[in-house]
């Protein structure tokens, strides 16, 4: 680990993207002018499950100004999938959710598109549908959503265990099992058994930027797509592979992204856009409105988790059994939802020492819109269950919830039950810090305002997996100065600033001297998707390597000119000089001009981490996880028993993201996660009727406003870094762990306030009111009123 240069790494330097963003000059996908752009629109299925008998496109095709009408029968309509190719770009033969694309049109204007859609005739034969994940996973479920699933191709995931359709469960596309110790013996030895079931909701990411993309053919026949997709390299590769276009004839551009939270990163909708450009041979704009995204996804999936703990009288948990199911909706292909299952088991053991353990996880198809990754890739949902279970154990044994967690939390260097060593863990520090900041031992004093209050704690881990290399280039030229090319997209998390800080640190220049290259597959080196809290670690390490490489090259050139050994030179503030002799030197531009014949200086970095495959019988791996980040929340919740209203009044956060590269940006992300956590805990939920979303507008799907967030003294944030030996300057990841522990802290505080535990998110007014009435022996009548 290198020491941080004062004022760069480890400091809250200003963000490199802000000037553009406050002046309106920052460009997102919809902000470019493309001449002659045609519009595209989709005809979507009104049925949750149906056979497509026929589509009559003749009338639509004849309309003047309509340039393409594409249906599932098109030979270019390929099967796509990130890991599991289970989805046609446009439905073929069968629709599996309300809103599934059945046909697409390209026309001169939006109004012409609407007329073309109205001219299409589709005959459907409706089929029975299944929406509940537990019904769908049953071996005897009469609805089989993908009867041909056995023949679908899937990308080999080298280290993963792939067990589809276990025990004849035909809608289960993935199952995963992990085990350690002797669980049966633990339950025989236990003084008590604590058993609970918890569930989370379907929800929307509500990234402020809605989907917008444009595609066209360049003069040299290159297919160019400008889109909102956080995975630039794999987005190009999907197009190349599916349509058989040479890699140098596909170019993907990704400008600034207006928030992601897991909502992009798959092959779709870019595959659809490419198909429409190929068929219309025109420049095409494809965009989805807010209401379309809310209605048709992709969505954060819902999840159900059962926990059964073998507990000793003193509160020691000696055995734990977890069953956890989540539904992917009708397809897995559009997102990296597939790895939810693996993440979950590996995440469930990353925090506590519970020697006897069994985890069984399922990923299940339903006839709902496709699910996809959401901040934390299922860990916040799993933590909603595990951390409320910890409080349930505490309540059953009379142990303080803080003390119970302290007793079980893993120590630095300790191996968890599935084999991974906790290399850098400040979980206990996070827990203690959150508790101290909220004054846990003091509790909450009652106020005569009709509201009841309580405090809740929650602790969590969030893993980032080992993975293939991220390539980075640091280019230094006399004309353009220092430019870093990297593939992580700037979704608001501040990766461009982190990259600039690391490059500036290594090249001993101010942050403002480092430019970040636009993301363009023609120039940007290949790298992983911007997900899983990985960019600071993987991209950051590669920037470090590339900047060191560039520095070495600069010094080697200067050494020749100055006739000294490279080791005698120093580089600082854009000057190369002989150490101790500042007068014997030259500026970097002068050096580059003098060595122009050698070409530009291009430093290269390529950092990846090789993992160890899982043991098929036990789910053990010594190294599947690159690192765990940790975090704790302590919150104060107020509940109005008369209305069911819940407010989060105070929040204390303590997060271990490894060494912060920019502590102020860390606080930014934590504050944002708190807001998202409040929304998901208290009001955000997509409501369905027969597979159709009923609240598909921001009028009826509310996200938090300024007035919903604790501020001032009511919001406390501590950074509790445990430096990671393999991280750049000791950094780990932050985006997800900032959210993961949140929901359960609210659930535990709600229980502390009311004595009632609501197992299902969100704690909406209706749910809270009904639960409190039921607990008071006043069940609701058909109108939703309590009989008092």
């Amino acid at each position, binding site marked *: 680990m290198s020491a941080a240069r004062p004022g760069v790494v480890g400091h*809250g330097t*200003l*963000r490199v*993207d*802000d*000037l*553009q*963003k*406050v*002046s*309106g*000059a*920052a*460009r*997102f996908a*919809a*902000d470019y*002018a493309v001449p002659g752009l045609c519009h595209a629109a989709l005809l979507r299925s009104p049925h949750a499950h149906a056979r497509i008998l026929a589509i009559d496109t003749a009338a639509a095709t004849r309309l003047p100004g309509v340039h393409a009408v594409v249906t599932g029968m098109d030979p270019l309509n390929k099967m796509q999938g990130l890991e599991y190719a289970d989805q046609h770009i446009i439905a073929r033969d069968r629709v599996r959710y309300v809103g599934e694309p059945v046909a697409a049109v390209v026309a001169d204007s939006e109004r012409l598109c609407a007329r073309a859609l109205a001219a299409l005739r589709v005959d459907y034969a409706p089929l029975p549908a299944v929406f509940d994940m537990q019904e769908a996973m049953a071996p005897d479920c009469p609805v089989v959503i993908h009867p041909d699933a056995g023949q679908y191709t899937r990308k080999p995931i080298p280290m993963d265990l792939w067990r589809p359709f276990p025990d004849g469960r035909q809608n289960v596309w993935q199952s995963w099992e992990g085990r350690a110790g002797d669980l049966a013996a633990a339950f025989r030895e236990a003084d008590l058994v604590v058993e609970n079931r918890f569930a989370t909701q379907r929800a929307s*990411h*509500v*990234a*402020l*930027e*809605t989907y917008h993309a444009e595609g066209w053919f360049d003069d040299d026949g290159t297919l160019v797509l400008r889109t909102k997709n956080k995975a630039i390299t794999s987005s190009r590769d999907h197009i190349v592979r599916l349509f058989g276009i040479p890699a140098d004839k596909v170019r993907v551009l990704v400008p*600034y*992204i*207006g*928030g992601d*939270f897991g909502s992009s990163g798959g092959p779709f909708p870019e595959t659809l856009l490419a198909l429409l450009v190929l068929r219309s041979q025109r420049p095409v704009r494809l965009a989805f*409105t*807010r*209401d379309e995204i809310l209605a048709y996804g992709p969505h954060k999936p819902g999840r159900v988790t059962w926990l059964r703990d073998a507990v000793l009288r003193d509160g020691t948990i000696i055995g734990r059994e977890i069953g956890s199911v989540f539904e992917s909706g009708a397809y897995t292909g559009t997102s990296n939802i597939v790895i939810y299952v693996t993440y979950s088991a590996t995440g469930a053991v990353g925090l506590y020492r519970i020697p006897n353990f069994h985890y069984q996880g399922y990923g299940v198809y339903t006839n709902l819109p496709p699910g996809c990754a959401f901040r934390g890739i299922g860990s916040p949902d799993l933590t909603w269950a595990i951390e409320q279970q910890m409080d349930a154990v505490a309540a059953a044994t009379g142990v303080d919830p803080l003390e119970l967690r302290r007793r079980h939390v893993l120590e630095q260097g300790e191996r968890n039950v599935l084999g991974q060593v906790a290399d850098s863990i400040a979980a206990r520090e996070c827990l203690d810090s959150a508790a101290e900041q909220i004054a846990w031992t003091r509790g909450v004093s009652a106020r005569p305002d009709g509201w009841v209050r309580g405090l809740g704690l929650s602790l969590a881990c969030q893993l980032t997996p080992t993975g293939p290399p991220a390539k980075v280039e640091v280019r230094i030229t006399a004309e353009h100065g220092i430019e870093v090319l990297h593939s992580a997209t700037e*979704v*608001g*998390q*501040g990766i461009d600033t982190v990259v600039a800080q690391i490059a500036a640190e290594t090249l001993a220049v101010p942050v403002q001297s480092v430019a970040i290259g636009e993301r363009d597959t023609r120039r940007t080196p290949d790298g992983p998707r911007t997900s899983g809290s990985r960019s600071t670690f993987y991209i950051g390490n590669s920037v470090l390597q590339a900047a060191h490489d560039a520095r070495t090259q600069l010094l080697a050139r200067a050494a020749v000119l100055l006739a000294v050994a490279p080791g005698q030179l120093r580089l600082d503030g854009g000057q190369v000089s002989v150490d101790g002799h500042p007068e014997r030197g030259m500026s970097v531009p002068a050096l580059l001009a003098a060595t122009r014949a050698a070409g530009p200086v291009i430093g290269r970095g390529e950092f990846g981490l090789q993992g160890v495959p899982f043991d098929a019988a036990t789910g053990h791996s010594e190294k599947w996880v690159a690192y765990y980040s940790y975090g704790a929340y302590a919150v104060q919740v107020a509940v109005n028993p008369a209305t069911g209203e819940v407010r989060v009044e105070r929040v204390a956060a303590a997060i271990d993201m490894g060494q912060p590269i920019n502590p*102020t*940006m860390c*606080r*930014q*992300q934590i*504050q*944002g*996660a*708190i*807001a*998202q956590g409040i929304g998901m805990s208290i009001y955000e939920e997509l409501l369905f009727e027969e597979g159709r979303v009923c609240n598909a*507008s*921001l*009028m009826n799907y509310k*996200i*938090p*406003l*300024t*007035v919903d*967030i604790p*501020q*001032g003294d009511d*919001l406390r944030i501590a950074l509790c870094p445990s430096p990671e030996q393999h991280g750049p300057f000791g950094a780990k990841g932050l985006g997800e762990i900032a959210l993961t522990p949140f929901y359960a802290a609210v659930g535990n505080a709600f229980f502390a306030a009311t004595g009632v535990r609501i197992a299902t998110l969100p704690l909406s007014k209706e749910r809270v009111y009904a639960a409190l009435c039921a607990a008071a022996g006043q069940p609701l009548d058909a109108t939703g009123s309590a009989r008092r």
Partner: protein
Amino acid sequence: MDRAQEQALYVPLTLQVNGRSVTLHVAPWRLLADVLRDDLGLTGLKVACGSGECGSCTVLVDGEAIRSCMMLAPQAHGRTLLTIEGLAAGERLHPLQRAFIEHFAVQCGYCIPGMIMAAKALLDRQPRPTADAVNQALCGNLCRCTGYVYIVDAVLAAARELAGPEDAA
């Protein structure tokens, strides 16, 4: 309706935008947000919901914060508009813009032009707002990244700079 019939319905539209007078002919059903973005290239404002719920399209019309996705372009005829592009004086940023940078109020940035314009409208009518007043004034502008905390800090800091010290008032 063919193109010629449609164009016969167009109405003249004169706007003062960011200190400049512009005259266009537009279809009367077009939204102000679309005319500003597509015809005048003022893409700073964003349309993130199209139903007046998110505030990303906020611009000032005669000094009032307006959701430009909810106003027909002809309704702005003859009026004075300010968008995010017109806020800075040349290279010199407006104190709100500077405060948003210095207080780390920006993440993805998509909501920020609307947020800053809503804040401008607030400070123009209430130069020394309390934190509560800022929270209330901005609660029609959604942000998914920041949790609003540094945004409120930034608006209060800009207010202090613009209005000067309390005792000078």
